[in-house]
């Protein structure tokens, strides 16, 4: 399905209260941006498990974007501070694994900053486009070997 030219795939983890709502606002305001970003909703950027980021890279993401409330604005008081600390460690760990730190980005975007969602998504897409595909081995094809249905059944047993 992917076009011949490299189109980066970016997974975004946005907190429910600020950045996800901000992304909704970008939609309501019809602010077009690069279609490369797929948004996953979490209640708080504090729920951002570093494993999610590495899972995204493993599954074929070329970049990961994390969005939370501005410092001091967290709906849960301090989840975004936890996210910031984790992000620092995460970035170091990613570098250790050979993943350029530019493929990771943490941004504070409030519910009223639809324009910032647009800007950050566009910038991130361009940044990752310049970096080129993340060449981790094996690529997501590995997962196709096991039929998805069975994967689930195994996980549940």
């Amino acid at each position, binding site marked *: *399905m992917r076009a011949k030219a490299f189109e980066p795939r970016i*997974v975004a983890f946005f907190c*429910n*209260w*600020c950045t*996800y*709502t901000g*992304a*909704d606002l*970008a*939609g*309501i305001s*019809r*602010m*077009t*941006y690069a*279609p490369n970003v*797929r*948004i*996953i*909703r*979490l*209640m*708080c950027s*504090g*729920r*951002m*498990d*570093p*494993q*999610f980021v590495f*899972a*995204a890279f493993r*599954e*074929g*993401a070329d970049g990961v974007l994390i969005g939370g409330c501005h410092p*001091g*604005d967290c*709906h*849960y*008081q*301090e*989840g975004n501070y*936890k996210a910031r600390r*984790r992000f620092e460690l995460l970035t170091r760990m990613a570098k250790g694994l050979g993943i350029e730190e530019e493929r990771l980005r943490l941004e504070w975007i*409030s*519910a*009223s*900053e639809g324009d910032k969602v*647009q800007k950050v998504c566009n910038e991130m897409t361009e940044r990752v486009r310049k970096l080129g595909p993340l060449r981790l081995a094996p690529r*997501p094809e590995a*997962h*196709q070997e096991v*039929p*998805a*249905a069975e994967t*689930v*059944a195994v*996980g*549940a047993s």
Partner: protein
Amino acid sequence: MPAPESNGGPKVGVYVCHCGLNIAGKVDIDQTVEFAKTLPFVTVAREYKFMCSDPGQEMIQQDIRDGLINRVVVASCSPLMHEGTFRRATAGADLNPFYFQMASIREHVSWVTADGEAATEKSKALIAGAVRRVVFHAPLEKKRVPVNPDVLIVGAGIAGIHAALNIADAGKHVYLVERESTIGGHMAKFDKTFPTLDCAACILTPKMSQVRSHPNITMWTYSDVIGVEGFIGNFKARVRRRPRYVDEDLCVGCLECIEACVYKQAKVRDEWNEGLGKRKPIYIPFPQATPLVVVVDPEECIWFKTGKCKKPCVDACERKAMDFDQTEEIKEIEIGSIILATGFKTFDASRIAQYGYGKYPNVYTSLEVERLVNASGPTGGEVLLRDGTKPKSVAIVHCVGSRDEKTNKWCSKVCCMYSLKLAHLVKERTGAEIYNFYIDMRTPGKGYDEFYAKLLKEGVHFIRGRVAEINDWAIKPEEEGKLVIRAEDTLIGAVRRIPVDMVVLSVGMEPQSDAEEVRRLFNISCGGEGWFTERHPKLAPVSTFTDGVFLAGACQGPKDIPDSVAQAGAAAAEVLSLIDRGGVELEPNSAYIDEESCSGCRTCMALCPFSAISFVADKGVASVNEALCKGCGTCVAACPSAAAQQHLFTDEQVFAEIQGVLDYV
């Protein structure tokens, strides 16, 4: 760990919404549906014009009842819009509502993607993510918590007062907190209101005294809310009551203390009169102040400044109400809902230097002129220049700090109408020639345009054009000693110079300077300009993104009195509806600990901002108190053994969604 086999193994129904042309105009619906059919566990994939409509919901319910599906994915708008709708539809067909997941292909795809093909591909990815995820969903029960029937209203202008009376009349208790020493807000400063020209005090002060005497209202003036915690139905707030150095319960408002003050002349700038008058260090802002209790200004009182004063005020008070040892008091209250009615401030006219405010004494702001025309104002209702003479010609400049790229871009909505009102009142009181300089005359509203037509007949001059400059440089003899307005009259296409005695700058409305702090305190959001953001501009105009916190009046955006009152009534109705419901259902997204995997490391406990996690010593494991957990998931992300999990956001659900959005497209 949820077992997909439960309730007969996952059978996922995918429903793709056209949303009219909102989605279908960009996304290839047929291709998307065909794609959905290829996804694992999908047994049904359909499309419909409006999934949120009755026939759309019925389609889902029929498939559930027919046993075709036991998981539902709707690809439509944002979950923040219609998640509740589809959960209810799912529950309506006797399937647990949490066997549902939404893919936002409108807000996050069709509305933000230029290219149709790319939009279709992105929609497929999001649907694949939702399908993967919903397979791991588990049945959940909503937590129900009681709603405390007491209400906190912040700000006692006309909006706060109206909401307070509505709620109190319904038999609920209201804490009305106002930071000024009197309630009433901006409306109490006005003389007449447009377009009916009824006296502001005559319609406001009876409501103010009703508030004062209402058994269900606790009125705290000179007070600020300094802390808020909790959630819908169960908030706790801390209110700081600043000392006024007078016992509110003893003072009867005889004002003998003011008379007795060692300052025989009023010397202090009178804020209530916009600095046009003077007051003493011990004062009331205006005769109808509510409560009618004097205030001592510690910045100006000679006792506080020097520690030396005979304190004749104390001797003058028969009731022994003076209390120079009074200190601030912190009140802690429990409430179930909050209405913010914190109002606005007027634009600082000195920011537009070329209009000469602060430089030329006879350039006034509209709020100053409101005080001049007010019978209880510094001149007893006479419109006088600084030298005490009556103006023979007055210019009223519209849109000062409104509709201006350099200051505020928004229209303040009230200025055209109040400028017309002031034109009428000033002409009535002085007989002066009045010149209105306007960009566009905006008079929508009941009786508003009729009022404009009336003013046109009264002989007030209207000049269409933004004023370029106001100065005192006389070129012609008739301009000597006058203020000269220079403006382009865009209707005749010429630049005009008009000499006048007095200029009124019709200043616009701005968010309060501390709107940002208030927003943080109550955990709501502001737009870029600083107005508080409503939950939905059309369908939830008085709600905020924080459940249980509502908005009324101009803190949400420029509003006139009728609009503020209407919104206050709406906020009161929302609050009363919430109270009468008796309880609220909370999203069941709390964290929980799998005791089998918990190693008892206690990492989670230190991270929880709500102290919801405790350690069960005999089992050596952590335990989450569901009543305290707010569902952020911070502990879940930190748990080294994946023993902490979050309902609706379990690790495997999120992993599945990640895989889904990346795998297929």
